[in-house]
Each structure stands twice: as C-alpha cells, then as structure tokens.
C-alpha cells in the first residue's frame, strides 16, 4: 500500500499530526518515506476533498485532523484491501 493519501489518512487515524510527524510516522508503520512534495500533494488533495482539516495552532508546523468523511473513506479502503488480501492469502494457500 503506497497510495500517499491512504498513508496520510492512516497516519492521522490515531491523532492529529503535522507534516514532519506524518512523514516519520508513515516511515515507521509502512516503511515508506514520502518526499515533501508527495506528502503535501496528498495533504492538498485530502483537504480539498474534506477528508482532513487543519487544526488551529500558533506554530509554523500545521497539524491536521482526519474528518468523519475521511475516516469513513479510510474504513472503506481498509475493508477493500482486507478483502483482497484475504483472497490472495487463501489462493496462495491452495496454490
């Protein structure tokens, strides 16, 4: 799973994070390092779609929060991936 928007949503699923924190978190849980351009491309798209929103802060580092719609989208994606993985695992067993 290397879709940057899903990785960002997955990162925000357990709490608000700013860009650098997301980058570190994603590298930790997915072993994928998102470049700054890719990360902010994903953040821009997610915010446009209303799946994340900025949290008020005085800091230069802007934290983001996943919205209800974003969480719903992430759940759908996870369910879909889970289905695919289960089928793939079953087929591997029978191969």
């Amino acid at each position, binding site marked *: 799973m290397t879709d940057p928007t899903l990785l960002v949503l997955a990162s925000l699923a357990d709490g608000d994070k700013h*860009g*650098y924190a997301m*980058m570190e978190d994603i590298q930790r849980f997915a072993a994928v390092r998102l*470049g*700054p351009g*890719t990360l*902010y491309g994903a953040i*821009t798209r997610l915010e446009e779609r209303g799946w994340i929103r900025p949290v008020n802060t005085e800091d230069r*580092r802007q934290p983001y929060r996943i919205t209800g719609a974003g969480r719903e*989208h992430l759940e759908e994606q996870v369910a879909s991936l889970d289905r695919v993985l289960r089928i793939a695992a079953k087929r591997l067993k029978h191969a």
Partner: protein
Amino acid sequence: MRRWIGWAAHLYPASWRARYGAEFDALLDDANVRWRDLADVLRGAFIMQTTSWKSYTKAAVAAGIACAILALAGSFLIPNRYESRAVMRISPQSPPSDSTPGAGDEDLRQRLRQMEMNILGRRALVSLIQEPELDLYREERRRMTIEDVAEKMRTHDIRIRLYGARTGQPGAMAFVISFDYPDRYKARQVVRELVGRFAEMNLVLAQKAGSGGKLQLLESADLPEAPIPPSHIGFMTAGLGAGLLLGLLATLIWRRPKWTRPNSNQAQ
C-alpha cells in the same frame, strides 16, 4: 540541499504557497532532506501548477492567444481576391403616370428578381464556369461537384444589389453586379458576361410580356486594381474565441477525473 529545495518550493502556484508555504517550509526545516527530495518537490510543483484553476485559466488564455496568432497568420496566407463591378439601370419603357417617388418600383424589382433567377440559376452558372475562356474554380472543381461550385459562386461570389433607389430618372432603378475572384481579369470578364446575360434576359422577358423595360449600362465592368482586404481583425477575433473555448474545454476534461474520483472511491 535545503536551499535548493527551498528554491524549488517557489515553483508552486502562488495561491498554493499562500496557503501551505509556511508549513511546507517548516517541514523542509525539520526533515533531513535529500537530493531525491529535490526531484520530489519539483514534481509536486509541476503537478500543482498543472492542476490549479488559475493554471487552467492561464492555459485557456494561452490557447486563445496562440489560436489568435495562428488565425492572424493564416489570414495573410489567404489568396487575394479582386472584385469587379458594373452598374446597370432598369427603367420602364414609358415613364410612369404616377410621378410619386417609388411608384412602379415593385414592378421593376420583380423584373430584376426574375432576371436574377434565370441568370444565376444553377445551369446558367455551370455553363459560365465551364466556358473555355473563363475556366473558373479549377481547384474547387477537383474536390467539389460542379453544382456545389455553382452554388458557392451564386451565394458567395456574385452579388447583385440595388444601387440607391433613385437614379435621376423617374421610375428607374439602378443595381450593381459584382463578382470577386482571385484572378482580376477573370473577375471583370465574369461581370461583363453577367451584364450581357442581363441584357439578353431583359429582351427575352420583354418579348414574352409584350412590353419590356429599358436596361442601360451606367458603369461597365471595371478591372480591379487593389485586392479586397481580408478582415485580419475578424480572423484574429475568431481565432481568439475558438482558442479560449478549446482551452477551457480541454482543461475541463483534464480536471474532470479529479472531481469524479471521490465519488468512485466512495462507491467501492
């Protein structure tokens, strides 16, 4: 490295920079940026530049300007055309009993229309086009039927219009016969031919009806010196309009997948 990436970040659209610039710079300060991040930021800037509404507007304007320039250049490549014209006067055989201005005009107009219908009929024009000494529309005849060429000649190139209602002679009406063509000698020759056909037709109608009108040539077909100037501004405006339209259409199509993506995802 940080300096290079900071410079690359300035390639993002100004509106994007205004919204995300400060936090993006904070991320660059925090992250241990590498060479490959430079390529990543350049790619990100390119994507943002090509997917913002402002860039679409710019693209549409650029397409409009490009098309306007092309249309303007194209208008200079259009071959010159020359218009030859002659003026004729038609008047009743005997002066009208009613001396009020305009009396008898309808009769003359009707006679003119009748002559015009015969002279500019498809068969008559086909024979004119094919006359060996004229041999008109050679290029067009290669790609169009002769009937279509005759139709084009009638609707676009030959013009017959009234030349002021009054001609100094009571009850008379003057009209202009004009024809435009890339060869000015042929243009004049066609107008001469049309003048001759009007004279013949007037005689035929006079014999049929028992009383003919008088048809006089006031100005014989001239040899045009200067070509008709093509409307460069018209071409340019049309090009601009078409370019803007095409640009907007192209950008709307380009933008569409992004609008539809959330719905398709939700449907999964």
